[in-house]
């Protein structure tokens, strides 16, 4: 049996995935980051401060909530929601930024940069930078700026400079490219807070570790409320940070089935989707080897999802690894299914999920129907949907 906690290796490889594929200028600071992270990962004072902030600033633990009316409505297994939407700033993203900014502080960095898609990571980064009084620059694709205007304004209120990225497809991947370029140029004083479990090592491991509190809480909470282990865990996957966060604690518990839900967009046959594991091939993007969506010539292609946070042509290397080992299954939910799930959860539970998380809810519903009554599914409700209200209204022809 594989011990999933043996990964990544010292060079950041999850078997054939991961690694460090970065330009030479960044190698020194990636090594410094690796060394610093290794040190603080086991440093008691650092970990105490991290958990103190998670409790008192983020508001952890987030509840594990049995969605009774949703379960009844769907008819099948019990659906539990891990309420990351109740965190400060509205999503799981804050877990990682709280951790990384402590590391930035410990390393003496004065300037923070980040990329963002839906804006949740940008907001979470601007938030912790404001709290520590550090200068913060957030790169965001021009297209995403248009569809997530509320988050853009929130970042500005928090004192961050938001830079509109106009190259390439003008979405998350281009924001990441631009942040990398900034980092190469200002490498000495700048700390780059990557928002997902991608990028060159040590980012995939580090972002996973800072988010793994989600899975640890869920395991304990489930055991207290029900006893034993859940039957399945479902989480949406763009880069895959919320999914790795909840999966990690359960990796060696092979009875717990893990499902990562990729964005099927307008349908696989249309090509307008963001399902990197389901439709991509092994390649190299943004510093690691993973599944990548590219054309016949290896050029990265534009993806589509109703949710900006899933609109990414790569995926964290550990997910690629878990897929190849058969430990997690990567399934699909399309735009319409996500929208339906959004409405259903809002109407029967009074919870507005983010469009990203709505993909997980959509698959959770499907899975619940297949499983027997009394079985238990935990859906990671990674973020709240307030930021998406305008998008949904516009889609439904409502002028707010």
């Amino acid at each position: 049996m594989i011990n999933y906690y043996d990964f990544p290796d010292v060079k950041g490889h999850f078997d054939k995935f991961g690694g460090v594929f970065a330009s030479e200028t960044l190698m020194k600071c990636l090594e410094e980051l690796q060394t610093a992270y290794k040190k603080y990962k086991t440093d008691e004072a650092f970990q105490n401060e991290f958990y103190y902030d998670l409790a008192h600033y983020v508001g952890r633990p987030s509840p594990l909530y049995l969605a009774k009316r949703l379960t009844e409505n769907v008819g099948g297994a019990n659906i539990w929601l891990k309420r990351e939407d109740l965190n400060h700033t509205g999503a799981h993203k804050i877990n990682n930024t709280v951790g990384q900014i402590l590391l930035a502080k410990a390393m003496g960095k004065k300037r923070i940069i980040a990329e963002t898609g839906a804006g949740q990571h940008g907001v979470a980064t601007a938030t912790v930078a404001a709290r520590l009084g550090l200068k913060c620059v957030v790169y965001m694709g021009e297209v995403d700026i248009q569809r997530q205007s509320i988050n853009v304004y929130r970042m500005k209120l928090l004192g961050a400079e938001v830079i509109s990225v106009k190259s390439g497809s003008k979405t998350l991947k281009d924001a990441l490219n631009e942040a990398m370029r900034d980092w190469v140029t200002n490498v000495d004083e700048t700390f780059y807070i990557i928002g997902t479990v991608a990028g060159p090592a040590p980012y995939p491991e580090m972002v996973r570790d800072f988010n793994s509190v989600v899975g640890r809480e869920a395991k304990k909470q489930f055991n207290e409320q029900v006893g034993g282990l859940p039957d399945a865990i479902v989480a949406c996957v763009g880069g895959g940070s919320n999914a790795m966060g909840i999966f990690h604690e359960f990796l060696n518990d092979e009875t717990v089935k893990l499902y990562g839900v990729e964005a099927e967009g307008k349908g696989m046959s249309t090509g307008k989707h963001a399902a990197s594991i389901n439709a991509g091939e092994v390649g190299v993007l943004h510093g690691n080897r993973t599944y990548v969506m590219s054309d016949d010539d290896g050029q990265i292609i534009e993806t589509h999802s109703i949710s900006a946070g899933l609109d990414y042509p790569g995926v964290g290397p550990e997910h690629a690894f878990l897929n190849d080992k058969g430990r997690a299954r990567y399934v699909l939910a399309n735009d319409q299914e996500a929208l339906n799930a959004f409405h259903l959860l809002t109407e029967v539970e009074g919870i507005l999920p983010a469009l990203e998380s709505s993909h997980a809810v959509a698959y959770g519903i499907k899975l619940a129907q297949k499983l027997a009554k009394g079985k238990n599914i935990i859906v990671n409700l990674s973020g709240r949907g307030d930021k998406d209200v305008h998008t949904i209204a516009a889609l439904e022809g409502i002028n707010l």
Partner: protein
Amino acid sequence: MSRLNKKFIKLKENSQKALIPFITAGHPHPLMTVPTMHALVKNGASIIELGMPFSDPMADGIVIQQSSEEAIKKGMTLSSVLDVVCEFREKDDKTPVILMGYLNPIEKFGYQNFIQQASESGVDGLLIVDMPPEEADDLLSLLNQYNMSQIFLIAPTTTRKRQEYILSKSSGFIYCVALKGVTGSNNVDYGDLSEKFTTIRSLTNLPIAIGFGVKDVESALAVAEYGDAVVIGSALVKKLGKCNNEKQIKKTIKKFIKPIAKALNKD
């Protein structure tokens, strides 16, 4: 002996520095790339660095980003980059050509296929920006097999220990980046260079090429002092981007490249 080695030996015999212009294959138009390469040689280029366009060039500044986007839009692919080199070789079997780019298109092409076809096309070396030597073993053994050079970058941030490691994996020449930043940046601190290159020189017999930030005769001469070759990229690509036909390209190169080549070779 490889074309690169021959070239550097000959330059050394004549106490000359190599001028290595960088152009993006397929920019400003795929049909203009081969004539551009010949014009560069005619006006004093010693080695040509041909950029393989990539959709997500993370280490490049805006000029090379845009040139890549344009080349891709006009149908340039990795396989047509190799066709370009093939066609160039019909008239020029002496000037070394190295390819510079990013890993994903090569992963898609397949390492074995790509190296074999590149070698058959007359490519002399490969520089993959997002592949540090730590991840390069598979590609290195293929490059050795096909007698092609593996060119790596040394950055201002590269530690002494890494310099030694990188040099142990390098062949052809070593490419030193003169500044922190992306291609086409402006903030070279020439004062820093002297010490840096004395160290690198003491670690290797490989020729040293210096690039990033070179944009005219003055800046070329300033870095040439420390190395054996000068790379000029964004400044050239920017000028070529304004050309609409072969005639303009030839004129631009004559006006821009010839004086730099001349300045580098005058002693």
